[in-house]
């Protein structure tokens, strides 16, 4: 049984974007801050910090979650994917490219969360329509785009990925 004295730090071992990393964390450290401040991956954004906006969304064992509302120690032994894991060898992921091409971002603050949520959507469903995308991103707030171009980008990414096999 893991146990700690308050303030005592625990060794947290995670697989993040396929890489094995470990670092000490206080039990009260939230996963978002562990990823950003301890592991140095600042692609994951902290927006509202009150479980409302979804900017901090990461994939935990493939499932999108708000990393500001889960403790780093809870992710120990699990697999995390962040926005840094999307591009390969300097090539943007088709989803990232579609966001770029369709103006799916303006200030870009919500984009890492949007990308992770929609990555999970495209993986889980072979066919997605406008409604599926809107429902999937209903926990991710964007104050710039009005969502129209985000939805467009996700749908286009899906058809490009299908063509690309």
């Amino acid at each position, binding site marked *: *049984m*893991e*146990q*700690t*004295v*308050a*303030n005592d730090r*625990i060794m947290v071992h995670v697989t993040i974007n396929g890489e094995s990393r470990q670092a000490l964390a*206080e*039990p*009260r*450290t*939230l996963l978002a*801050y562990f990823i950003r401040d301890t592991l140095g991956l600042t692609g994951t954004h902290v927006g509202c*910090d*009150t*479980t*409302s906006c*979804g900017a901090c*969304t990461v994939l935990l064992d493939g*499932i*999108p*979650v*708000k990393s*500001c*509302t*889960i*403790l780093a*120690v*809870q992710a120990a032994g699990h697999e995390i994917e962040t926005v840094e894991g999307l591009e390969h060898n300097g090539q943007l992921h088709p989803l990232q490219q579609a966001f770029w091409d369709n103006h799916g971002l303006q200030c870009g603050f919500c984009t890492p969360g949007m990308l992770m*949520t929609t990555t999970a959507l495209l993986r889980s469903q072979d066919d997605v329509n406008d409604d599926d995308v809107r*429902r*999937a991103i*209903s*926990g*991710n707030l964007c104050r710039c785009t009005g969502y129209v171009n985000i939805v467009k980008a996700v749908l286009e990414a899906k058809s490009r990925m299908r063509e690309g096999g």
Partner: protein
Amino acid sequence: MFPNPFQYYAPQSLDEIFQILDKYGDEAKILAGGQSLLPMMKLRLAAPSVLIDVNGISQWANVNAQDQSLQIGALMRHRDWEHALDSRVPLLHSTAVHIADPLVRNRGTMAGSLAHADPAADWGAALLALKASVAIQSAHRLREVPLREFFVDTFTTVLEPQELLTEIRIPLPQNDAFVGARYFKLERKVGDFAVVGVAVTVVLNPEGVVTDAGIGLAAVGATPLAAVNAESLLRGQRLTLDLVQEAASEAAKESDPITDRRGSEDYKRAMVNVFVKRGLTAVHKDWQLQMDISA
């Protein structure tokens, strides 16, 4: 933002949980999905000195159907009902899609929502309508409490500091019965708490007579409420327009909302009326459709 410091335990068995609870009692809080508890701890509305993370209790991540009841383990998450429709309890799916947002639904648990006892929570209303009960366990005893006796007050239940909510049990209708259900939620924006939430579930026999009815109300009282008088008006009757209207106004009378920035008392009562009517009407239409298909 970050919570006050606390000691963290991640037990792998019930015995370990009970040992920790025995030692710390009400200083300890149970962490399941954490989608209410962690936000409260970050805002320092809650500052437990010990956190018991129960996500390692794998036996709780199961659903079983036995003895005419559905037994839902304490680690079943909202998403499990969002992506599945059980035709014997359609209300679960109908409700799940309205809870918070998809990201919260991926973590939050049904049992955690009940134990948290927010009067505006969607599961409270839905599971009251389904006449569910909860299994409560401590090191010394195991008891089953009907949900209708579980909620005491806002954020307060009959759970003792040494006890755990381990399972939710929902009675299942006869195999051949028709079950129709709806969950309606008035919210200011997606993901918000309900201004008013209404859960309706009705079992109808082939003659269209109501053999069982459940109506649960969210955000219109100090706890989630069951509209028991409205339910008893329905039982043994056909769903006529007059009866639906009568049951809806009875449910509105049974609700006990307060005026706040989400709406006035009168407005919320009126919405209960509208939603009960809408729910019962929709269920009746479902039933007619079903009869037409099988005829």
